[in-house]
């Protein structure tokens, strides 16, 4: 009895010594390791038996948790580049297990396009989803947006928006399709798209991401409106954003990503951040004093 109690006490003591370095090790474990690798989908299907939907959902949640963790770190000024490749692999695996899982499509759309710039990959995934989620207007809405905004394929965009409009019964998609056909108001459309996305978003990390981007696009739009007004009044395109501010057409715009707005040679409004914190970092590496305005 005494021997057993002593052994238990020793074990508890050893546990106390071990648990702190053990927890620290797990906490600091590289993200790639934490996100893990998906075995072949065929193998997963076999092991999952009749719980394929559960396994798919758990893969999506794993990616969401991982991404949320990174966002929290970014809030604390710790920049850890997300492992987009693993995220994409996990989400592709999850839709093979459960082709109806909307979270997977939605999240893949959010980072494959804006962050990874894999528009074709995102569209292929969404096209795959459309075969199953035949009632869902979001998927054609996403593809429509990708085609128009990123790929500049307005004919395809209009086709997908038409489909989204038919499914949703809303005129918004048809309206967007019409505008895309005219290739005008890109910023307005991005704002409309991001507002729709942000409104229904429940995941705080993703919502914050959208809000930030939305803020940047609204500022861009403000500069565009001022630029157009300047042209109307002065009969010529402004050369710099400073001209707009000093002429009283615009209060100083603020890029939430930390960049500075400038006008390109054709008058297009751009920002040095390229709508990403990484853009500002790259810029800071450049020589001080380099002019932002490019003509």
């Amino acid at each position: 009895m005494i021997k057993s109690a002593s052994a238990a006490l020793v074990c508890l003591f050893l546990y106390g010594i071990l648990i702190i370095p053990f927890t620290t090790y797990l906490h600091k474990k590289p993200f790639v390791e934490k996100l893990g690798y998906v075995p072949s989908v065929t193998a997963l299907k076999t092991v999952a038996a009749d719980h394929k939907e559960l396994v798919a959902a758990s893969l999506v949640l794993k990616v969401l948790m991982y991404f949320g963790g990174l966002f929290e770190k970014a809030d604390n000024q710790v920049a850890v580049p997300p492992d987009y490749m693993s995220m994409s692999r996990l989400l592709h695996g999850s839709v093979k297990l459960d082709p109806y899982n909307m979270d997977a499509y939605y999240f893949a759309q959010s980072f494959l396009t804006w962050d990874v710039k894999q528009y074709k990959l995102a569209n292929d995934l969404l096209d795959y989803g459309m075969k199953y989620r035949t009632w869902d207007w979001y998927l054609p809405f996403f593809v429509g947006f990708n085609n128009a905004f990123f790929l500049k394929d307005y004919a395809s965009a209009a086709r997908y928006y038409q489909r989204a409009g038919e499914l949703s019964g809303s005129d918004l998609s048809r309206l967007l399709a019409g505008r895309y056909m005219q290739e005008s108001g890109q910023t307005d459309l991005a704002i409309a798209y991001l507002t729709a996305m942000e409104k229904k978003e429940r995941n705080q990390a993703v919502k914050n991401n959208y809000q930030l981007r939305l803020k940047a696009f609204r500022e861009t739009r403000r500069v565009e409106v001022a630029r157009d007004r300047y042209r109307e009044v002065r009969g010529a395109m402004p050369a710099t954003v400073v001209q707009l501010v000093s002429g009283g057409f615009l209060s100083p715009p603020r890029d939430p990503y930390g960049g500075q707005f400038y006008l390109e040679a054709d008058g297009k409004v751009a920002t040095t951040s390229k709508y990403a914190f990484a853009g500002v970092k790259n810029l800071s590496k450049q020589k001080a004093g380099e002019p932002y305005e490019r003509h």
Partner: protein
Amino acid sequence: MSTIIKITLKGIFRDRVFQGIMVTACVFLLIPGIASLSMRQVTELSLTLSLSLLSFIMLLLSVFLGATSLWKDIERRYTFSVLGLPLSRQSYLLGRFGGTALFVLLTAAVLGIAACGVVAYTSSVYPPDRPIVWGTMALCILFDALKYILLIAVAFLLSSFSTSFFLPVFGTIATFLAGGVTQQVYDYIHSPTSQKLSPVVKQIATGLYYLLPNFGAFDMKVNAIYSLPIPANGMLLTVSYFLVYVGILLSLAAAIFSRREMR
């Protein structure tokens, strides 16, 4: 036989299996919280989790109740006293099976109500894009229960000739895993991608497909989760398949058990 069914049910309740299930069912309370992590399909995720939990509990019940019921009776020598009564071995086996199957059905009903409660709560807080079809959900749970009753029949067949509980327990688990993928294997060997496979392998795989139970047919989770319609003829065929397959398994089990030498 009805007496054996009643005794089996009483025995299961006496062993506090139902209380164990009720304790496990407390996990249902955590589901709305976990489901709220989803971005776009909270209700669908709560359905996925509820149905998977229900299915997992029934799997455990089928494996452990189905595979140990006969073995326990023989090991404790209950069979000597029971079979001394004017009761055929076949009736005894079928009674034991009936009692276990009834318990699984009862569990499915009780846990199904709990699952509906969880899903109703989640959908009231996070309304889904598509309305929940409660009838489809009920059918999904019913077909899940039928699948596990079929698995119990497999366990009884293995128990009818096994002298230890290892074969029934592990054999039932192996049958469950194999039965879940037979349809995928069948689809694969009949697709152009399997052209490189040897004809012998294809024939063996096809033979196993017809021999092993096809549990894929009973899986209607995706229909319940995403409110997809279930074809009526598919349901009819599946129920017919269930009746015929369980009939074959129980006939074989009864035939083997009646000739078994009791020691």
